[in-house]
């Protein structure tokens, strides 16, 4: 059962990593336009001669 000493903190760390990722994504505005993001994933890449519009 000593394995718990490693596994429990490990599980917690993974959970915290998930929470941190969620808070980061929220802060960087990834939930501001859910409809648009769904389409962007399948949009064609822009032609290379144009500057990509990125934040």
């Amino acid at each position, binding site marked *: *059962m000593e394995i718990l000493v490693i596994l429990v903190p490990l599980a917690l760390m993974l*959970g915290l990593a998930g929470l941190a990722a969620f*808070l980061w994504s929220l802060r960087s505005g990834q*939930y501001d336009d859910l409809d*648009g993001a769904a*389409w962007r994933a*399948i949009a064609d890449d822009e032609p290379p001669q*144009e500057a990509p519009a990125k934040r």
Partner: protein
Amino acid sequence: MHVSRDFSHYVRTAGEGVQHIDLAVEGVHCAGCMAKIERGLSAIPDVTLARVNLTDRRVALEWKAGTLDPARFIDRLEELGYKAYPYETESAEATEVAESRFLLRCLGVAAFATMNVMMLSIPVWSGNVSDMLPEQRDFFHWLSALIALPAAAYAGQPFFRSAWRALSAKTTNMDVPISIGVTLALGMSVVETINHAEHAYFDAAIMLLTFLLVGRFLDQNMRRRTRAVAGNLAALKAETAAKFVGPGEISQVPVAAIYPGDIVLLRPGERCAVDGTVIEGRSEIDQSLITGETLYVTAGQGTPVYAGSMNISGSLRVRVSAASEATLLAEITRLLDNALQARSRYMRLADRASRLYAPVVHATALVTILGWVIAGAGWHDAIVTGVAVLIITCPCALGLAIPTVQTIASGAMFRSGVLLNSGDAIERLAEADHVIFDKTGTLTLPDLDVMNAADIPADVFELAGRLALSSHHPVAAAVAQASDARSPIVSAVEEAGQGVRAVVDGIEIRLGRPSFCGAETLVSDVTNLDPEASVVAFSKGSEKFILSVRQGLRPDAQAVIAALKARNIGIEILSGDREPAVIAAAHALGISEWRAGVTPADKIARIEVLKQRGMKVLMVGDGMNDAPSLAAAHVSMSPISAAHLSQATADLIFLGRPLAPVVAAIDASRKALHLMRQNLWLAIGYNVLAVPVAISGVVTPLIAAAAMSGSSILVMVNSLRARGASREIA
């Protein structure tokens, strides 16, 4: 005179040497539009950012400071086929967005904690019946406490704050039992853990918060979306005014950038966006949006004009007395304040439920504790059982019962063209059993239409429409629109106050006053038939025609009235317009109850009378004169073309030309209220089953968790039935 468009009011600085503007865009629907707009705008040199937000239908633009004029973006979007206008975030919307983000953050924290506490709880539940050592169990409980306590302190904020506000105001709401339940569950679990006890309720407490936050977030998100749409619509109305920036120099500026004391030019065919006094010029103005009166008023020096008036014939110079948001009549403001105060006394279904619920639950818990003590149990065991009762009855499903239905019903309403202004409007609309319609702009369309187009040869009508394109007069604009004319006649000349004339194929054609066209003799035939119509004459050589132009009834008004009657809803018309006009509309629609020439105070008085008879009145109106009665009625609706004030006051706003959304909204809200009640009964039924188990003291954390998630999911699934709102009028 030089006219320029000035959007500097909307431009803000975003970082070093970069300027930013937000545009509301009409007609963005798909990924194709998104890519087209972003590419089209990025192609302009010096643009550093062009990003479409498909959810809110907006574009964020950034460019190197000082290189570009924002008007260029709007022109570019117009070339691409989209109507756009700068958008300014109102403070109300900014608050909703911030609140929505905060709730999402709380939800994230609560969900994380729930998952991890559950990961620790399941081994304890299964270990309790097998070979788990007490030390291991304690270790898991302490870990759970480590996660659950800070998470609950953070994620519980929305509930704790609201409960505190309610208690400070000496009332209760649903958040009071929630806060008490969560706090007691956590407190008891800590005590039990210290005493090496078998059961701790960290998982139940934090799971409760998670489910409730889902409900809160959905509710908030619905409000945020509605605000965003309403904000866009307001922006796309593009209310601007021609402001004098020098003698003889005019700049077209947004209304938000106009201040009292400024002088603006009001050209024929323009709607006034400010309150003020005429200082120069003579004209006729259409005050129907303010008073409901469809006859034009003569305006000259010293005449007060109000936002929403339409200038008909001549140019006016107006000195602004109050701009944009301050534009209203003192009398109307006073009535409005009184009426709004009365309405805030309405108690929402959720509050009524919680007012009954909280005392019952807390009394049950207390009785349980005392009962066990009397039955001979120790204080410790009795209190543990009492807290278990509170945890089991914590209004998880009750908290979800209403917001989930509201969210789904408002989505269904949105699809049928109705926007919700206030959250509890659904409940109130569902109870409405008497509808009062305003006439002008509500039963009738806000814009003018040619009534006798069928009597005029098609080629003549088309020619008249083409000629009308050269005039600014609103009646001419109506003729142009009705005839669907596209190409103006190049040589047309407008004679102010008279009409337009041109020579086509060697024949002179004229459109304007009957006297201008030599058609005075024909006028009486038309006016006898329809005393309300404005008359415009058209002559082609010696052929003379009379066009009768007026506000037509909404295309489906008759069907809607019939549908309302079929639903056993009383209908009447209260209009500020003159009697003949009201009679004509009432007759055409088959409405037997009507009142004409009604003042705003009379309208309120009428609503009060109906209220005293126990009727729940739905007021549908658009004019500024309707605003106080919109607030006084049990529930109210406005078309999107309504005056600002009315739109802000109304509970619901409907889009487009048809009147059908009124019926659709009533149907959807009735269905929603039915589901809300059903959900409340489901939640109560669950409690009736679970409470005896809790009182008997055999509840384990496993039972609590299963019961809580089971009832919540049941309620959510039931709410989904609000989705299929019928769209056609049956």
